[in-house]
């Protein structure tokens, strides 16, 4: 076992134990969905819209049906239940009926004996359209005279958060800064594309296997489209090759397509997306447009923030309302600001629907507020660090929604450590003092992150578990959250081992299956450790009480505290009095003691009200800051990132090595977001749907990464843990943008900041001079 972070009185949690799904992954025996074969299996392919907006004039599948090996072509007319994918607003049809709203929208399904035949036949299905004017960007969408593609104003959702009287403060403020910022799409680019198999059963029920984050969302979707009772649908996750939010909502579509085809053909049906199809039809990070203002007094105390935050939702709303909400709640930044006005709008366009992506609206708002904070520092002539120090959240601060931070706030410690480990004081120099063709710069960005779904999804913020100690002392666990590569099954095993008092490697977590535990909500929002962790702690705790009783009996004492070192139980007061874990288990079985239990956890209550935009939005927050060191070539405008120091207050690192892995992976996704990942959609058509055209970071782009973990325990988290999955994706991009400014004096208002963008800024500055 490797290093632990804080001093540990635990035998299991806090250790960097080896992840429990790794042998099959390094040997290649792990089975991802495309590795499964079922007897008699058919293959599905999707017929997709070839125009961004249009009425379907005709649909003809005769040619496709004639192809040898084609079994059927299904359309919306074949859907036995409702032809809609149930997300939040139910505006997304499973298969288009009379019109299409984006290039790539699903219209029909071809089922055939091989995937090649299915794909070939899908191209032979003839669809003609009456093309309609398409909305290409969100500004166009919000114009009064715009074509309407959603409701009567194209607005999927809007939120207003108002605290104090920002407008009034701006009028009288000593210093005001403002900026307009845009960010582009980001593609999840998980290495395993979307895929599902639906397997119909003789009793009329159906089992879905596949690559997914949220089996319970899929469960709801299948019930909805097939119109079958809930107990006839079972969803099983297969080993999943990356997700990052991209397998949160849209797998419901893939699964529902496979389920429909299987239900109608009465055969197992597999659907695996090609990379191009995955690019074109699956969700993306929302492009954003943000106008922001800060007011401050002369000493640098921020007195007001005003934000207009607009997301381009694409053709259907999917999870846009909640992405918008998370971004809005955090939009003023991790600062204690008494007057805040935030207006957040997500509107429809005729492009691929945007949805969940690690960070969930926060990378966009962070780019705006953390760029603007740096501008404010320039205007006040104080260092960007000092300005953050003056205003940052501490215990006692209030958020934009008026929530008082009463506990577990490690932002100050995080910033301090990040500054130290990045050698900030040695490297920082104001941009005017930097010279030469290649210039170094250092920048920082900070953020806070509400853990879990908070008020945005409070009825979903609960989780179940099932824990069973077997006769030989090994343990089987079922939870409702999924393993995506982040390592949650390992952390869950560590928690169970700690609670039960058994060795970590005795514990096995079963593949997530909706028939084993009740709906435990989605595997998103950095909530799994907290939610499922607590549910397992609860179940294992119940079993442990029974075990402790037996231990006392076996040791012949009436009472006393029982402890464990993972092998033996012993009396706290007299450690020499001990019994072996497995002997106790055996004894319990002999005495017919039940060593199984269900567990349950529901998050603390939150009070945020949509009407007022005020109240407690989340029960706890993680805090993060990243410092970036870059080198900018002022001739070619190329940026090379040299070092990223990313610090995170996560309550407690239950497995430090896995935490580092989350940080390193997240910051590199954010580096791609900052510099190279540039999806282009022109007139509704995606121009670069491939890894050749859309550049995610490769091994050649990787700077030195220093992950920093701070532990400010959350009293209700398992062993104090909060959450970590999303925060590493939030600050690095902006830290890089701020570092570029520090190197060159060039302030980007766009992400990604490609060499072309920088050249543009450079030219612009010269013109001004």
């Amino acid at each position, binding site marked *: 076992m490797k290093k632990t972070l804080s001093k540990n009185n635990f035998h299991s949690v806090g250790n960097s134990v080896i992840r429990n799904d790794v042998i099959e992954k390094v*040997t290649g025996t792990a089975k991802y969905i495309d590795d499964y074969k079922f007897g008699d299996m058919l293959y599905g392919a999707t017929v997709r819209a070839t125009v961004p907006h249009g009425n379907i004039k005709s649909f003809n599948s005769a040619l496709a049906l004639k192809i040898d090996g084609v079994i059927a072509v299904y359309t919306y007319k074949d859907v036995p239940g409702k032809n809609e994918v149930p997300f939040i607003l139910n505006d997304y049809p499973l298969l288009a009926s009379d019109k299409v709203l984006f290039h790539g929208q699903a219209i029909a399904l071809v089922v055939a004996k091989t995937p090649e035949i299915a794909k070939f036949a899908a191209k032979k299905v003839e669809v003609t359209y009456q093309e309609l004017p398409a909305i290409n960007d969100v500004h166009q969408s919000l114009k009064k005279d715009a074509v309407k593609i959603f409701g009567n104003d194209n607005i999927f959702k809007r939120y207003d958060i108002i605290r104090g009287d920002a407008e009034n403060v701006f009028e009288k403020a000593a210093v005001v800064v403002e900026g307009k910022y845009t960010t582009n799409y980001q593609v999840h680019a998980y290495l395993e594309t979307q895929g599902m198999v639906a397997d119909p059963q003789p009793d009329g029920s159906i089992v879905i296997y596949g690559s997914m984050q949220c089996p319970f969302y899929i469960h709801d979707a299948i019930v909805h489209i097939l119109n079958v009772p809930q107990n006839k649908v079972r969803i099983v996750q297969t080993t999943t090759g*990356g997700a990052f939010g991209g397998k949160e909502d849209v797998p419901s579509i893939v699964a529902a397509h496979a389920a429909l085809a299987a239900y109608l053909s009465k055969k197992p049906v597999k659907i695996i997306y090609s*990379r191009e199809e995955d690019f074109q039809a699956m969700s993306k990070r929302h492009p954003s447009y943000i106008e922001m203002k800060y007011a401050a007094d002369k000493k640098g105390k921020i007195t007001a923030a005003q934000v207009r935050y607009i997301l381009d939702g694409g053709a259907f709303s999917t999870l846009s309302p909640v992405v918008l909400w998370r971004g809005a709640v955090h939009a003023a930044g991790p600062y204690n600001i008494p007057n805040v006005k935030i207006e957040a709008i997500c509107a429809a366009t005729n492009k691929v629907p945007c949805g969940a992506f690690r960070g969930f609206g926060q990378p966009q708002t962070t780019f705006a507020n953390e760029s603007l904070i740096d501008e404010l520092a320039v205007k006040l002539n104080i260092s960007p660090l000092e300005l953050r120090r003056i205003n940052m959240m501490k215990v006692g601060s209030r958020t934009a929604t008026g929530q008082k931070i009463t506990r577990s706030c490690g932002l100050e410690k995080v910033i301090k450590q990040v500054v130290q480990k990045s050698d900030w004081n040695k490297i920082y120099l104001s941009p005017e003092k930097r010279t030469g063709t290649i210039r170094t710069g250092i920048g920082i960005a900070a953020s806070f992150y509400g853990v879990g779904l908070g008020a945005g999804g409070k009825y979903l913020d609960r989780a179940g578990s099932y824990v069973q100690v077997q006769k030989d002392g090994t343990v089987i666990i079922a939870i409702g959250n999924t393993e995506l590569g982040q390592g949650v099954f390992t952390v869950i095993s560590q928690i169970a081992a700690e609670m039960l008092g058994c060795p970590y490697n005795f514990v096995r977590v079963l593949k997530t299956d909706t028939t084993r535990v009740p709906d435990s909500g989605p595997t998103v929002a950095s909530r799994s450790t907290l939610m499922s962790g607590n549910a397992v702690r609860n179940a294992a705790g119940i079993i442990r009480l029974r075990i402790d009783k037996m231990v006392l009996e076996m040791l012949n004492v009436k009472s006393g505290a029982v402890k464990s070192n993972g092998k033996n139980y012993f009396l706290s007061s007299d450690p020499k009095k001990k019994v072996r874990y497995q002997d106790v288990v055996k004894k319990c079985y002999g005495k017919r003691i039940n060593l199984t239990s269900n567990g349950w956890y529901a998050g603390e209550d939150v009070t945020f009200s949509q009407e007022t935009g005020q109240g407690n939005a989340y029960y706890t927050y993680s805090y993060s800051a990243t410092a970036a060191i870059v080198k900018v070539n002022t001739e070619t405008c190329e940026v090379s990132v040299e070092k990223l120091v990313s610090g995170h207050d996560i309550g407690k690192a239950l497995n430090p090595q896995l935490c580092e892995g989350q940080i390193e992976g997240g910051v590199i996704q954010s580096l791609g977001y900052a510099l190279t990942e540039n999806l282009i959609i022109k007139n509704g058509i995606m121009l670069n749907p491939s890894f050749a055209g859309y550049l995610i970071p490769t091994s050649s782009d990787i700077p030195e990464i220093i992950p920093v973990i701070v532990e400010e325990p959350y009293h209700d988290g398992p062993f104090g843990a909060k959450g970590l999955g999303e925060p590493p994706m939030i600050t690095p991009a902006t830290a890089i943008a701020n570092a570029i400014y520090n190197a060159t004096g060039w302030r980007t208002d766009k992400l990604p900041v490609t060499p072309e963008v920088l050249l543009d800024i450079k030219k612009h500055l010269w013109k001004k001079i």
Partner: protein
Amino acid sequence: MEKNIKFILNGKEVEVTVHPVKTLLKVLREDLGHTEVKAGCEQGECGSCTVIIDGKIVNSCIFPVGQAEGSSIITIAGLCKEGELHPIQKIFIEEGAVQCGFCTPGIILAVKVLLDRTLSPGDEEIREAVSGNLCRCTGYSKIFSAIKKAAVYMRTKK
């Protein structure tokens, strides 16, 4: 036209009757059941489908099986010897270089080719060796440290 094609796969001779332009990836996965070779893009851009052919790394998704005639192919399944993990596999585990695992078979094979060539690779060589293999989960950091550690381990073991 289908043809008989023979090659050595993980040390064993195999023969398939397929169209010679069928990709090696499809032949391995579909005709031979070697699903440890992964399909991430099927356009030669991600490295998930990496195999070793006669000592070189190849993206099997753009490699026509006809060209494999007579060659020796290694997939990740050919790395364990009698159930014992290869040192690279062991060290990838220890270092936490694996998350979702989808890129892992390809990356480990690319590393094997590197370490077969040199046991003291420089930083640039290490980056170069896996530059054709995308990983979206790990940020590559722990992959680099695993490679360095594996090199040292194998050097001292020799």
